[in-house]
């Protein structure tokens, strides 16, 4: 984890600069999760750690892809990623809750969600396949 964070610190800016996005990001869930669609407010609560429960009460596991974080939160809550990171520092280092797990790319996130019935992940629409279900769409400008 520490190694991944350090790499993220050093090369995060390069990764963001070099990332190529589709025209929208999507939140995906396992088809067997029972989740068909999420409201924007629900996505905000889940990805900012205000709730860990899916609509039917199961505990959710949230995944993020490093290169998608900045545009995802900029569109979702109108905040720069530095503000989101400061928010998570507050929660993480007071033992409240842990931030979503970072994965290296969209394919890894799709694999995780396909394998875990109560997982959610934010990925580019180009990353998804038939193993997962789109439950929220976030168009990019």
């Amino acid at each position, binding site marked *: 984890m520490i190694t991944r964070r350090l790499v993220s610190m050093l090369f995060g800016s390069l990764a963001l600069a070099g990332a190529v996005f589709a025209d929208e990001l999507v939140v995906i869930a396992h088809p067997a999760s029972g989740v068909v669609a999420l409201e924007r407010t629900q996505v905000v*609560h889940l990805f900012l750690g205000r709730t860990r429960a899916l609509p039917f009460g199961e505990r959710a596991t949230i995944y993020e892809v490093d290169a998608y974080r900045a545009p995802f939160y900029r569109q979702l809550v109108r905040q720069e990623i530095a503000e989101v*990171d*400061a928010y998570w520092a507050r929660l993480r280092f*007071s033992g409240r809750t842990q931030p979503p797990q970072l994965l290296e790319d969209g394919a890894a996130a799709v694999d995780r969600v396909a394998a875990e019935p109560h997982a959610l992940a934010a990925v580019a629409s180009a990353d998804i396949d038939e193993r997962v279900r789109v439950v929220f769409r976030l168009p990019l400008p």
Partner: protein
Amino acid sequence: MRGLERGTFMRGWGARAWVAVGLLCWGAASPAAQEDVAGAGMGLRLSGFGTLAASYHDAQDTQFRARADQREGAQAGRLETGIDSVLGVQADVQVDARWSSMAQVVVRKDGKGEWAPRLSWGFVKYSPTPGLELRAGRLGVDIYLDGDSPHVGYAYTTVRPYTDLYGQLSFDRFDGVDLRASAVVGEGELSLKLYGGRTRGEDYRGGHLFRREASTTLGATLQWESTALAMRLAWGQVRTPGDGLMPRLAGALREIAPLLPPELAAQAGARAAEMEGRNSNLSYVGLGVTWRHGPWSAQLLGVDASMNRFPGFEGWGVGSTLAYRAGAWKPFLAYSRGMLTPGARPLALPADQAELAPIRAAYALATGLIANDQYAWGVGVRYDLMPNAALKLQLDRIEAKRSSMLLDGSGTSVGPRGVSVFTAALDFVF
């Protein structure tokens, strides 16, 4: 007054460290932690935070400090790195969906003026449902709007929490339990937290380091937080049994009472009784609001505090910050004011009796330990130079009529003075 012996501290630290190691071993040895470190959030996570900071001012015979538990402050004409620099390492173990543990060790300059590690957090958490959490172990009180801890500089817009408010509240840890219930209400999360336990922390006043090992911390926090708005109402109390915080001074007053004229003898007896008497309650109520709209963010909070036993005080404080995010830059303006007024405790010992001089001096020091009337303007900028690291430059102008946060060259509270403090800080998390 009780000083802190190094041996006592080291033994205490050793015990706390073993508790932390025990918590982690318990979690790390669990089947879930061993089988699935990467998946579903289970297993061991190591992380940390830190601040490298240097402060400078040129006000002679003045030491600037950020917290009352700091023995030394920044002195005139010298770069001081011990005011805000800190390193924290944290280990989280998620055993299963309901059980987890966390231990956090923070290294910073302590009340003896030495760099030392401390167990800042160390608890086991049980969460039977997603909206209910019970924690037991080393915990913190809910008084910091931005961080639940004064040490995670990266979580703050400014270099440090408001010195005038939070600097005085150094008994912010406790060994006990807290219970937090939360639910999504509208656009935000509504939560109620109740907590209590044995007080931990220390503060350095008048050349002495005070601890409240026998005290009890109680508190409750009601909070609602959305992306645009957060409101927090906090109440807390530190109760200390009536075993006397100043037994030597009280004893000295009782000894000299028979030698004084009747009226003065009664006065000295009354003051001694106030030092030795009933339980002490230090209470505070705080209300804070944080507002965010686009690039703008603002924060306003107020605290009312009081203590009912000698020397006693009534106090209040306000703090506010206005900031604007422009890409990686975030300039800010901050204002804070803190007022602690000791209760009236007259004791007119004759000035012409040399043998009473030490008692007069000790009494004046005791009644002035907490007195504080100061405000501060701060202007600065935060620059997020890379993911998980931010550089901050901040200039504070502090004006004090009297201050228990500023110290003079000998380490005691000061009277009227002003000081401009420049601080550069690099905050990071990993």
